[in-house]
């Protein structure tokens, strides 16, 4: 999965690179690929260029850009058809160049196809219930304008973690080193486990791991150190989850959404917000669970006139 997303990112940049000349200099571009470059060809060159740029942006921005990857495959097919038509008609001023372009497109189609298939595959374990589910490990860092002591104290109370860690429902401290964790699984269910602190060096490091009988075996640590130049505190968080086989494993695989690394980075941004300004920052759009335009919530009674896009 991660590799497929990486490849998608590469294809995104590639798309940008491909798209620009077709849009910016359609005349030169059509000549370069060996077709006549009349107005009709240039129009197509422009259309194809815009398509590449849009697909590029989609591949770069979406967390799991399945649709955009497939849009590239569809685009490749369109290119092959266009070039093929050019080759078989009188349009090919330089047939060898057009043939080369055709071969290049055919090659990239294979890569696009491979990536789309890989992206379309459900995240590991989500479909096959009995298959071993992939373990997940994520390391993320952030700098916080607070002292190591403050950061350590806040984190040390595990009951604070659900305030910024999206996948957690609640954590209850049950003893000196023991705690009970509940995480949000799909369809309103939860998975649970008990955990114990296995290392606790004040203001430097806390490490924990789940105990026997956990729905999901997991461990984590936070390493805390002063940032250079007295500019606060650097933390490095390291989380690993080993989902078991079976339906619980499949649910756990979805705990962190499609891109665990991005979600945990967002968790750390929220942690920083709580430490630095006392609450999690929301905008009119992010205040809601679902995507929402940048405008106030629809609940209040008074209506106002606003210019909007």
């Amino acid at each position, binding site marked *: 999965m991660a590799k497929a997303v990486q490849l998608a990112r590469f294809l995104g940049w590639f798309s*940008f690179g491909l798209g*620009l000349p077709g*849009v*910016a*200099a*359609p*005349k*030169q571009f059509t000549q370069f690929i060996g077709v006549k470059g009349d107005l009709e060809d*240039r129009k197509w060159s*422009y259309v194809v260029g815009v398509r590449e*740029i849009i697909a590029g*942006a989609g591949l*770069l*921005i979406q967390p799991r850009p399945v649709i955009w990857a497939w849009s590239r495959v569809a685009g490749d097919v369109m290119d092959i058809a266009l070039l093929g038509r050019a080759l078989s008609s009188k349009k090919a001023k330089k047939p060898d160049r057009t043939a080369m372009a055709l071969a290049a497109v055919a090659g990239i189609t294979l890569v696009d196809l491979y990536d789309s298939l890989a992206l379309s595959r459900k995240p590991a374990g989500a479909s096959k219930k009995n298959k071993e589910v992939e373990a997940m490990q994520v390391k993320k860092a952030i*700098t916080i*304008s607070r002292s190591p002591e403050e950061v350590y104290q806040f984190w040390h109370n595990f009951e604070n973690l659900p305030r910024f860690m999206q996948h957690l429902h609640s954590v209850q401290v049950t003893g000196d080193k023991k705690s009970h964790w509940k995480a949000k699984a799909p369809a309103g269910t939860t998975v649970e486990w008990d955990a114990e602190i296995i290392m606790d060096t004040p203001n430097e490091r806390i490490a924990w791991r789940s105990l026997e009988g956990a729905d999901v075996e997991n461990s984590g640590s936070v390493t805390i150190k002063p940032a250079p130049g007295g*500019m*606060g505190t650097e933390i490095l968080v390291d989380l690993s989850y080993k989902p078991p086989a079976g339906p619980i494993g499949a649910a756990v695989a979805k705990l962190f959404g499609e891109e665990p690394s*991005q979600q945990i*980075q*967002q968790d750390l*941004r929220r942690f*920083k*917000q709580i430490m*630095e*300004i*006392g*609450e999690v*920052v*929301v*905008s*009119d*759009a*992010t*205040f809601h669970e679902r*995507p*929402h*335009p*940048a*405008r*106030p*919530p*629809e*609940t*209040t*009674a*008074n*209506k*106002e*006139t*606003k*210019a*909007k*896009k």
Partner: protein
Amino acid sequence: MGKKDVKVEEVPDPKILMRQDAIVRITSTTICGSDLHLYDGFIPTMEKGDILGHEFMGEVVELGSEVKNLKVGDRVVVPFPIACGRCSMCQRTLFSLCENSNPNAHIAAALMGHSPAGIFGYSHMMGGYAGGQSQYVRVPFADVGPIKVPDGIPDEKVLFLSDIFPTGYYAAENCNIKPGDVVAVWGCGPVGQFAIASAYLLGAERVIGIDRFEYRLRWAREKAGAETINYEEVDVKETLDEMTGGRGPDACIDAVGLEAHAPGFVGAYDRAKQAVKLETDRPIVLREMIMSCRNGGTLSIAGVYGGFIDKFPIGAVMNRALTIKTGQTPVQRYMQPLLQRILNGDIDPGFVVSHHMSLDEAPRGYEMFVNKENEAMKIILKP
């Protein structure tokens, strides 16, 4: 409600969502050149129904429980970047790079590596905040951004503290102006006008404004005191060389941005762009500034860029030791000192205003401003 489609609609009142929020009843707002990039569809992650607008002022009508510096009834100008005041960027007064104010930081980081601050009414990638082209707006971090302005001074004199006055000033300050310096400013829109005026405030000896609209060039000459070049009539670099003893200007300011109109001089590539009326991130002004600037000079980029450019003459930048300075303006840093300048009478920012309209006429205002009709310079909208 899509590209080039702005509507006025009834929406619910904003609410306090965080303890440091204020709700402001807007008395004046404007359309900024940056809104045109959204309007024309160049900034990704806009959604149907987003409220635009990031340059505004008004009266505080409601406060969150933790706001200490403001009272209900205060008259305030609100800076366009949203900044928390606590993070390491804010502590260094780099407010437009606030690390906490963009709740959609992950989207911006995917596109740009790291995320800048959130901005009012400026796409979801920049936070998904409702903008100020409205009757009421929610203002987060009310103790950090909004600045109180005295009663009795008209809106149009202080409104532009919200964005374009600090933006022009920041662009000029980034030029590191020394006595005797010649500064060239590409674009004589409202931002260009303030860049010209600010370059003089900061001690430039000569300022040269570049545009193609004669009324904007006239404005630059008569109201901001610039010499001017119409880039459709002459070659810009040659003319700048002639005007500066062959050295080129000491500093060049880009007050145009990603929608630069192609003057068709950097070879066939740009001519082809012009022929198809290309509208993507176009580095036309950047290239021209790089080629024109004197050796060891400074390029100050105020114009907004969203994504990617090509054919960027990095060889000229490197070999001729040019400095590039840029950024969304850290407006919070400049509001107090520039308010003082206004109160001292050093400058009257009202000189850029060309039209007053009601908020209901916003769609027409966008049309006029984007097409440069009716000698539109800066349009003030009144809710």
